[in-house]
């Protein structure tokens, strides 16, 4: 049944009003405040805040983190979805549950896990110290924590899509003489490409915005281990509202670009919205 275009009666209008007000107060207003506050002292102050070398280093680190963790999760996500949907094996359900784990666990705990494993007092700490490898309070720790937190996005997007598509096409490709690799590149990948892009975008948005887990393992060393979200927090704590809001506006912009791309994708490929495959 298609929804009717205009709310028909008072009840429906009331419901719509409540929903709009809710979104307005909780989502739209704060976003607006970010941009308003950022530009309060004029464009000059805004640009100055962004030209701060610490801000530059934070932007660089954030982009680098995303550039490493997103491809990692892309490869893992495709491999895991392929394995889960095209094969039957023992421990399949365990794998599905494990993929969901980062969603279920608080990001702070995700960070603490790495602290406990790689920190100076952690399991591998003494060995790492001996070999002069720094993981925690350094860039590798930030990348690990971000990768962990953004782990499920690609796989979660692909699994329902690939489940709905089934294995008939792959089986046919095999019977027609294609190798496993050819089957993947010629048949599977083209079928999932839009879903994959969608998952990567979501994954990227989260990778750039992650605060909790990164905060725990970063050590907040200015110019070295501060990502954009951490940098914003520091500026805020230092009573530098212009700097904080200017940087926040930049991060919000990145998120908005991601969202807009995602919406454009959804408009072109409505099936992504439902998270299921195109009709056969």
């Amino acid at each position, binding site marked *: 049944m298609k929804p009717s275009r205009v709310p028909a009666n008072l009840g429906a209008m009331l419901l719509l009003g409540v929903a709009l007000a809710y979104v307005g107060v909780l989502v739209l207003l704060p976003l607006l405040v970010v941009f308003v506050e950022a530009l309060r002292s004029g464009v000059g102050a805004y640009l100055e805040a962004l030209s701060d070398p610490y801000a530059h280093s934070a932007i660089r680190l954030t982009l680098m983190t995303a550039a490493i963790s997103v491809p990692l999760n892309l490869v893992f996500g495709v491999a895991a979805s392929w394995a889960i949907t095209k094969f039957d094996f023992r421990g399949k359900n365990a794998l599905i549950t494990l993929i969901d784990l980062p969603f279920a666990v608080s990001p702070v705990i995700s960070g603490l896990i790495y602290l406990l494993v790689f920190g100076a007092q952690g399991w591998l700490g003494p060995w790492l110290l001996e070999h002069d490898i720094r993981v925690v309070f350094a860039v590798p720790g930030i990348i690990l924590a971000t990768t962990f937190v953004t782990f499920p996005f690609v796989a979660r997007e692909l699994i329902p899509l690939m489940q709905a598509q089934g294995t008939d*096409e792959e089986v*046919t490709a095999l*019977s027609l003489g294609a190798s496993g690799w050819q089957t993947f590149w010629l048949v599977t990948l083209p079928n999932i490409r839009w879903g994959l892009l969608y998952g990567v975008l979501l994954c990227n948005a989260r990778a750039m915005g992650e605060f909790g887990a990164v905060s725990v393992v970063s050590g907040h060393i200015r110019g070295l281990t501060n990502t954009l979200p951490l940098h914003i927090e520091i500026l805020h704590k230092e009573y530098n509202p212009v700097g904080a809001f200017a940087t926040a506006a930049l991060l919000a912009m990145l998120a908005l670009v991601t969202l807009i791309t995602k919406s454009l994708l959804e408009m072109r490929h409505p099936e992504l919205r439902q998270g299921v495959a195109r009709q056969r």
Partner: protein
Amino acid sequence: MSIDFERISKRYGELTVVNDVSLHIASGEFFVLLGPSGSGKSTLLRAAAGLTGIEDGRILFDRRDVTHVPARQRGVGLVFQHYALFRHMTVGENVEFALRVRGVKHADRARRRNELLQLVALDDFTNRMPGQLSGGQQQRVAVARALAHEPAVLLLDEPFGALDAQIRVELRETIRQVQRRLGMTTILVTHDQEEAFALGDRIGVMHNGRLLETGKPEMLYRHPATRFVATFLGAANLFLGELSAGGLKLGQAQIAAADSQRASGHGEAVTVVRPEDIELADSEARLHSTPLCSGHVQSLSFAGGVQRLRVQLPGDSAVQSAVNLANAAPLVLEVTRNSSEQLQLALNAGQRVAVGVRRVHLLPTPISSFRILADSAQDASQLRNSPLLNQLATSMRARIIDSTASSGEGNVTQGVAVLAADSRAIPTIAAALARGTQRLLCIPAGAPLPRRVVICTDSDAARPAALALVASVMRHLHAEATFVSVQSPAAPRGDVAGSFRRLLDTRAELLESHGLDVRTDLQVGALDDWLARLAASEEQTLIVLGVAGDAAQIEATLTQRFQPLLGGRCPVLLSCSHAPVATLGAAGAMASAQEPDQQLIDGAE
């Protein structure tokens, strides 16, 4: 390219989906695997394509073992029910796929693509996407795609299943023409018998993972060997008839030898009468065929060229159904009449008619029916509900008849007598033997479904009949059979060697004439002791015991040697051969005396 399946078995955990299937398909043949869903036919096809592994057996292409060759190297063309076209490729790209992955040059690919699309009459659709085509067109693309790499084998898995009736017929024609022109060996899997008849050079009918029968369509339709095939391939009326020197007796009617296929032998036989072989007339005098009985028209329906009727026989009719009827329901015949018959005699529902049969076919099964011998109705219902009898009767579609001595049906000598294995078993068996019964199933109270079947005979003379019976039973049990020979410890060396030879002979014989493989086992001891121990054990075993002799001799044998066996936990199937007891070594001379049983072996169910 010829295809051989050699003793293929496929299991999913506990479930055996393909059970010991052997099949030869000649080069260029169009073979149809027919069966209800879940019969294992698709699994067998997927095994041929290399898409599913098998636990046992070999698959040969042109006598070359391809069991472990991966799917992509088998060079078969495969078409699925749901087309499985590559949805992001155009029709042309779909057809070219097999050539593309083989690195064929673009120009050659295009030429082959055009040829193939022409073959399936879709040359104008090269640049369309699959989603823009109708179901029938998509399936034609799938067929063209499967042919691109010139496979020697074409495998079709319910290719018409998702199509409308008319498109189905058209595509059927296309596939038949393409197959004829290219001469590919083709296997089609379907559950639709009309499709099987229209396309198959030969048909193989599968049921419960077993390949029951193979043959040319008309052969299978006219002369099925099993109840399942008789009823699955078209409609069939199954009766219990009694065969004697004078011919076949169906109820009160005596059918001359010329009308029936196998007019020799004696005893109860399952009789198949096709709906079109039944004649209806307003009085018996006007029948052109052998009168069977009278009845009245229950219902009629229009079915294009023919008229379908259901004719109900009166409750006291002497004609007996070979399949189970709901509680005391009257026997209803399925009849079809062609247009000239309809013109000669118009019929209305409720009208009385005389029923005649033009042609009958007798099934060669040794188990024509199960007849329960019990003292009370309670005992009878307990037997009727036992898991073993239930499984056998349901799977065979055989009828269970209460046949206590008082009911007047006790004089029928054939079928399998079913009785409780308790202290009163031996007198009951003796009485049944005296009436001429040859096969008896003794079921202890509460016996579970057997997981294993053990076969022993007390002499070589008893063996052929016992093996025919085992072959028939094994088709309907998911169990493993072992033929056991028990050797006295004091036996001279020559006897031991003879026992070994007999085991191997038996195995070969079963495989040869029944397509059934058994394990063999040689035990040391006395047969009766060994069996008594087995019967008393917890193992869920069906013991098949073959004994030979006249009624009195067998009764004596049972009383003296096998009494403990009939009081044990295991069900016992007795096969009694009414022949003078042969001494060892004289088995060859027994062959002629065993005529009726030998005949039963050939197509045992």
